[in-house]
């Protein structure tokens, strides 16, 4: 009896949360021949995983407990960690929460979305392995385990990218991703082994205890290797073309996983690496590296996105652009910055997931994501349109949606950092972030014009709204987008600030595993104070009052007494004003909508176009060059 009670103790929940996903994958291989059984198994395992993680929120996040879990009870012997450990602090749990929510929604969505594909069994197996891999990565307390999980998730992601192997570019994207991803994985493995050679341990906490005082050439090289390795997982510049290819080619539910979950694992790895293992974030140059790469990703990807004319590929570039925001904010090494970065990471999972699901809904119904072939879907798919718009407003930072709340904190954080450090470079970052935001808005205006508004092409006359299951999945994300935007104080207080505090409590992280943390500075006083003011609820209240009064006046003055044609026969009165004899199909496509902007930047866009050549050798070269640069950086600076 007590063993049962013991097994139900929340101490065990992390490993349960990982294992139910892998178990689900295994069971689906065995029993998944039947669709119902398969769906039930998949749903059960993702729900269970979500439940386990949610159950951990109170003890870990709110009570500040750090769960140290030694697999098989193999506690450290002689001061050296021998067994494999899971260590869950608020940071890990924060990412695990994102992962489980994204996996859950994506799984719910898949049930309808993947209905028409064959090999559904393999799909769910790989899907659950992908989820389990990321879950294992963020909950792990062991560097080599992280590598294993990275490999699992890379494999699952590659296989899922190529899942619809008849779709345009799916195989190609998978191959590129595999090659560059393997380079990244190799980097992680070499880095891990070099750290092991120096510290003779693989436990994260122990590494964090040993390494910072004993930096030498080998550890510096290891740092660079691990940084680049996790960088490939986060798809930061210069690995962003892979993300674009992979997101664009994968099924939408997998795009959600790749952008919402996989990139987060890279960010998580970088945070662990810089804040915990090497504790180098107080170095100005280290902050510079992260902020520089973040800003670069932010800007390069948003401009690349403006030039895209495929719905999902465009979203993919935006995904990396938002990751740039996260990395920038995290790289500031201020409490507000980290909190803002994590907040944005969470929002990114939500709104980007929503957008990818909307893109998937469009693909599901129309069979294409080419912006030039779509248009006018708002009349056929009203729910999808509304949900998409919520996502688009969120990502472009329109108040009161969540993207605004986190971006706003990021601007505050960067500007405060600029003022505090007196470094005008951070000011530039603020400006880049603000401009990126409006460029994001521009490209989503482009998407909404060329997919949901404008005129309906004749081929799409028979398009219908997507089934309820898919709408439900999107609605979850949309609801979360609105809620996290409306209550930023609650979110920061209960979710991101504990996680951000965990980032700055390295000593507790080490101490929780039973290692001596005396050499590490105790938790520094963290302050989340910021200078701005933003009260979304009051704003919304005033807006509602204003809107209500406007509407009342409008209705009273018969504003809604309008004439709209009814029935099939269209009087020329209700046709669009157009120069021809009859209304013709004349959709303003998305291909080059913002030429007024691009015209002034044509040199830049030419260069970018040439750089993103699509040849795998070039991308590998970028990876190697990036590796070399980071190596140089870490050898000089650290």
């Amino acid at each position: 009896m007590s063993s049962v009670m013991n097994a139900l103790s929340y101490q065990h929940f992390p490993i349960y949360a990982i294992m139910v996903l892998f178990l689900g994958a295994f069971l689906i291989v065995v029993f998944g021949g039947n669709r119902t059984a398969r769906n039930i198994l998949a749903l059960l395992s993702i729900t269970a995983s979500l439940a386990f993680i949610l159950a951990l929120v109170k003890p870990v996040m709110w009570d500040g407990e750090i769960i140290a879990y030694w697999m098989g009870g193999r506690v450290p012997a002689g001061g050296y960690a021998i067994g494999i450990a899971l260590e869950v602090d608020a940071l890990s749990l924060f990412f695990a929460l994102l992962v489980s929510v994204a996996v859950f929604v994506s799984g719910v969505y898949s049930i309808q979305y993947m209905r028409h594909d064959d090999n559904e069994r393999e799909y769910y197996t790989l899907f659950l392995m992908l989820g389990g891999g990321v879950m294992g990565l963020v909950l792990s307390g062991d560097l080599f385990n992280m590598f294993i999980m990275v490999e699992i998730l890379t494999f699952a992601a590659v296989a899922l990218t190529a899942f619809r192997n008849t779709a345009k570019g799916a195989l190609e994207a998978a191959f590129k991703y595999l090659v560059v991803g393997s380079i990244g994985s190799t980097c992680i493995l070499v880095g891990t082994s070099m750290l092991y050679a120096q510290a003779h341990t693989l436990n994260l906490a122990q590494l964090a205890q040993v390494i910072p005082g004993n930096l030498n050439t080998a550890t510096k090289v290891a740092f660079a290797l691990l940084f680049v390795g996790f960088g490939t997982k986060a798809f930061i510049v210069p690995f962003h073309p892979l993300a674009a290819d992979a997101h664009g080619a994968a099924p939408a539910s997998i795009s959600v996983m790749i952008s919402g979950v996989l990139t987060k694992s890279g960010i998580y790895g970088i945070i662990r690496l810089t804040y915990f293992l090497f504790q180098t974030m107080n170095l100005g140059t280290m902050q510079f590296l992260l902020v520089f790469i973040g800003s670069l990703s932010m800007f390069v990807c948003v401009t690349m996105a403006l030039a895209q004319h495929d719905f999902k590929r465009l979203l993919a570039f935006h995904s990396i652009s938002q990751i740039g925001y996260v990395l920038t904010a995290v790289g500031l090494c201020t409490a507000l910055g980290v909190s803002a970065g994590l907040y944005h990471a969470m929002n990114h999972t939500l709104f980007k997931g929503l957008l990818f699901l909307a893109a998937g809904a469009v693909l599901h119904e129309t069979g294409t994501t080419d912006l030039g072939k779509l248009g006018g879907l708002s009349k056929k798919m009203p729910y999808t349109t509304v949900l998409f718009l919520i996502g688009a407003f969120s990502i472009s930072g329109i108040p009161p949606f969540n993207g605004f709340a986190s971006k706003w904190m990021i601007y505050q954080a960067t500007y405060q950092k600029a003022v505090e450090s007196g470094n005008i470079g951070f000011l530039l970052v603020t400006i880049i972030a603000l401009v990126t935001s409006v460029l994001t808005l521009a490209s989503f205006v482009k998407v909404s014009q060329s997919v949901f508004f404008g005129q309906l092409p004749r081929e799409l006359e028979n398009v219908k709204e997507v089934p309820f299951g898919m709408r439900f999945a999107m609605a979850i994300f949309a609801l979360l987008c609105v809620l996290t935007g409306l209550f930023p104080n609650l979110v920061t207080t209960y979710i991101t600030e504990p996680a951000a505090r965990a980032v700055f409590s390295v000593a507790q992280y080490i101490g929780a595993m039973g290692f001596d943390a005396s050499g590490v500075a105790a938790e520094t006083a963290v302050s989340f104070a910021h200078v701005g003011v933003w009260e979304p609820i009051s704003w919304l209240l005033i807006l509602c009052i204003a809107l209500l009064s406007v509407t009342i006046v409008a209705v009273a003055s018969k504003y809604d007494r309008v004439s709209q044609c009814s029935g099939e026969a269209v009087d020329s009165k209700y046709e669009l004003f157009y120069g021809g004899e009859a209304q013709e199909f004349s959709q303003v496509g998305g291909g080059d909508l913002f030429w007024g902007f691009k015209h002034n930047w044509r040199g830049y866009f030419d260069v970018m176009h040439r750089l993103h050549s699509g040849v795998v050798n070039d991308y590998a070269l970028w990876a190697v060059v990036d590796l070399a640069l980071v190596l140089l950086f870490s050898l000089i600076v650290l």
Partner: protein
Amino acid sequence: MIMLNYIASFFLITLGLYTIVTKHNLVKTVIGLSIADYGVNLLLISIGFNPGGTAPIFTWSELNPASFFVDPIPQALTLTSIVIGACVTAMSLALVIKLEEQYGTTDTREIRRLHG
């Protein structure tokens, strides 16, 4: 002796990366990945090697401060790494076959439908 191992392993890794970057044949790219992987394996096994050490097979009672054996953890890591390397090769070769079917070529310069 060990130094030579390290040099060799880094040489292998560099050679693998060089192959990936410069060779325009898909299969050669895969070979490059494998070579880099072997380099890593060599590195791992060299890290764990203690000259003169015995195999790390013992029971708790045999263990005493004087016993001297090679580090078992890198060996475990190497095994895992080998398995993963094999998976990478298998997976990428499968993709190469499919790519060849779809694109009719194995030249990476022509497999760039997704670009820009």
